């Protein structure tokens, strides 16, 4: 039998970290396995809707989460990738990583989500050559350049707002007929002269030489080439749920959970963006993490 724990939490974004805080306070024998700390929160621009913080940059909020996490006594495996989560006949959950094997009575999957790709011509070729999925990381490199943000939700608006202060012009290429992000963000973008919004538009191709120099936008059957040096893809998320194949998931691949964060496998709980929770927000992921930890604690109490 490998090292065994009461609870193993996979992932340390807002959901996993909050779950760990709750579990550690309950005194559970806890292991957290994660590739990185902070998750998507660490890659967000400015966060203005996390209660208690009227305004906080994503990386700073993630740093506060990490500081809170490290106050507790538990085992943490960083830079470690989980390969597979499996239920054993013994009732233990077996977790295989790129570095070892662990077992636990309960597990919380809080692996989050990653950026969805555009599937446009040239996307792979120009990745990091003008095309990026992280405005917070790479935005500052586009000073005095013309850029395009692809998408129309909150993450696209967040990227556009960051880029307004850096780039000379920001195009927003939105596939839907309207921008869907928060009104407060829409207003910031709409009233800015540096922004041009293309609704009902799709990016067909990204072109360039060594670096991006244009995108081809399709609108109403017509194609138009727009000269840009930067492309920021913000079209939504794919859940990181591949590590656990034999669990109920919806069409998007999100792990299905009930209101107490139970999955279809007893003893396995899930929280945050990897699940079919109705909204993907930092504060929601954190709340879901708390619920999942309390549900795991109850489950352990019943088993004991």
């Amino acid at each position, binding site marked *: 039998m490998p090292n065994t724990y009461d609870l193993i939490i996979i992932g340390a974004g807002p959901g996993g970290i909050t779950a760990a805080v709750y579990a550690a306070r309950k005194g559970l024998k806890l292991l957290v396995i994660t590739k*990185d700390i*902070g998750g998507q929160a*660490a*890659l967000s621009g400015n966060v203005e809707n996390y209660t208690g913080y009227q305004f906080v*940059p994503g*990386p700073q909020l*993630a740093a506060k989460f990490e500081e809170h996490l490290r106050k507790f006594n538990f085992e943490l495996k960083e*830079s470690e990738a989980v390969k597979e989560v499996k239920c054993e006949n013994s009732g233990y959950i077996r977790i295989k990583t790129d570095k070892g094997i662990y077992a636990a009575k309960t597990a919380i999957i809080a692996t989050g989500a990653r950026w969805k790709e555009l599937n446009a011509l040239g996307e792979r070729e120009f990745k*990091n*050559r*003008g095309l*990026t999925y*992280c405005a*917070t*990381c*790479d*935005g*500052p*490199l586009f*000073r*005095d350049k013309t850029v395009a943000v692809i998408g129309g939700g909150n993450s696209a608006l967040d990227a556009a707002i960051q880029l307004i202060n850096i780039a000379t012009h920001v195009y927003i290429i939105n596939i839907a007929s309207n921008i869907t992000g928060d009104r407060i963000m829409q207003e910031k973008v709409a009233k800015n002269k540096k922004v041009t919004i293309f609704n009902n538009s799709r990016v067909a191709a990204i072109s360039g030489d*060594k*670096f991006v120099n244009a995108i081809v936008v399709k609108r109403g059957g017509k194609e138009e080439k727009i000269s840009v040096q930067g492309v920021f893809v913000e079209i939504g998320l794919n859940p990181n749920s591949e590590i656990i194949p034999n669990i109920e998931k919806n069409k998007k691949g999100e792990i299905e959970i009930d209101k107490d964060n139970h999955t279809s496998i007893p003893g396995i709980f899930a929280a945050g963006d990897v699940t079919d929770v109705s909204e993907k927000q930092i504060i929601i992921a954190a709340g879901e993490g708390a619920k999942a930890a309390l549900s795991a604690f109850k489950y352990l109490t019943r088993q004991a």
Partner: protein
Amino acid sequence: MSKNVLVYSTPTCPYCTKAKEFLKTNNIEFENIDVSVDQAKADEMIKKSGQMGVPVIDIEGSIIVGFDQEKIKAALDL
């Protein structure tokens, strides 16, 4: 003799922060170059690495893109 290490980074990029923390933890001296305020250095980074993502770490001319612990260790003989 210690190697000459340059870190091209932006203040907001979490992987840049992680890379710098990693170097500090291993007592590696480095020069941090903030490419968000220095366009000439940003161009230099793009020329050296052939791409625009941060961080870029230059260890005595060997160029590492992203926070790749294994490659950093190898380049520094850690």
